[in-house]
């Protein structure tokens, strides 16, 4: 009965209206070029930017290792650790980019489509766990470079080796993660929870009520 009533209303829609006019070829060409995903759900640009930045840093880390090897007695642990983390960072982001595959994302069945979006958000949030130690490793290096530019002496804690330098790195890593947790991750956590609850609601809803 309910469905019959809906069908009656459905058939009352006008054959042609401003809203439902035929699609023109020129409109189609414009639409084909535009990005269909809402900015919140589209992470390709961010992932690409991170991949490029990671690749640049990776080259920088290689150069740093080469420079450190030519200098007698310099510590190679930090540059090698940085290079290893950057390699994993690059691998993680390239893998996520291939997994997301925004070109064919919309052609999946609804539930796998939502699951994929959830996974992308989950992995994206996880990426901050790699960025934080990287920030911990490279912020002192950046500080030293900036201090060098302004002809200041680098801070002994940052410039020197040993236990205190690693303590600074750990402290910076944890601080950066806490900062991300309160600034960047919160937004994606909310999006992830929304998509997840929506998918679970779809699975749990009884369609008997609908039609």
């Amino acid at each position, binding site marked *: 009965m309910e469905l019959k009533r*809906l069908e009656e209303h459905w058939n009352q829609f006008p054959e042609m209206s401003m809203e439902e006019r035929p699609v023109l070829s020129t409109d189609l060409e414009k*639409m084909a070029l535009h990005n*269909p995903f809402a900015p919140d759900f589209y992470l390709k640009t961010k992932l690409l930017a991170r991949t490029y930045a990671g690749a640049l840093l990776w080259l920088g880390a290689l150069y740093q290792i080469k420079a450190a090897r030519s200098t007698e007695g310099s510590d190679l642990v930090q540059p090698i650790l940085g290079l290893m983390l950057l390699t994993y960072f690059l691998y993680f982001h390239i893998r996520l980019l291939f997994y997301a595959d925004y070109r064919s994302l919309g052609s999946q069945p609804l539930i796998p489509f939502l699951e994929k979006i959830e996974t992308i958000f989950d992995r994206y949030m996880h990426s901050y766990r790699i960025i934080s130690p990287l920030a911990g490793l490279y912020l002192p290096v950046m500080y030293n470079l900036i201090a060098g530019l302004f002809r200041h002496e680098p801070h002994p804690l940052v410039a020197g080796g040993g236990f205190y330098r690693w303590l600074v790195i750990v402290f910076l890593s944890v601080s950066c993660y806490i900062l991300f947790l309160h600034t960047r991750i919160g937004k994606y956590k909310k999006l992830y929870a929304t998509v997840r609850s929506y998918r679970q609601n779809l*699975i749990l809803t009884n369609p008997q009520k609908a039609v």
Partner: protein
Amino acid sequence: MEAQKKKLFVDEDPRSFLKNQHRKVYSICRLFTNHYKEHQSLVANILAVACRCIGPGKTAAERKSLYIKACINMAVLHALSEGLKKDRAVTDKEIQFKSPDYQKSMLGFRTAARGISDLEKILLFLHFEKVAPEDIPGLTGLAPSLVRPQQPRQAVGQRFIPYLKEKIIWS
């Protein structure tokens, strides 16, 4: 002859296909949009996704299936982003379209369909597009038991005798 026909379908221009199937996009927009701007944006998004999915070398059946998937996915994504903007129910005042006939039909339809969930909207869209019930799990990814109308549950007493009969007498 049949092979020629099949080849014709395979090589059909994706642009012609999209133009011929535009009614499907409008159907899902009737269920998920509340005003003209939203409607136009969802139409553009669905067609953009469909353009990416429906490449050359696909059969008519594959294209149709991909097209419906694009409609459903983008409508759901639209519903999700709108849900993030506002956490409240849509009132009649918010349904605003440019053409008066469309606005009137939309108000009537939305009043009749008030309170239905997004899954019900999707199933309604598939019903209006005459999609066979056995194709729905493939398009939505939902388990068949959720999509098929469920049999009313019988009381334990009513079920017990046929169950015993089946187990004891016929086996």
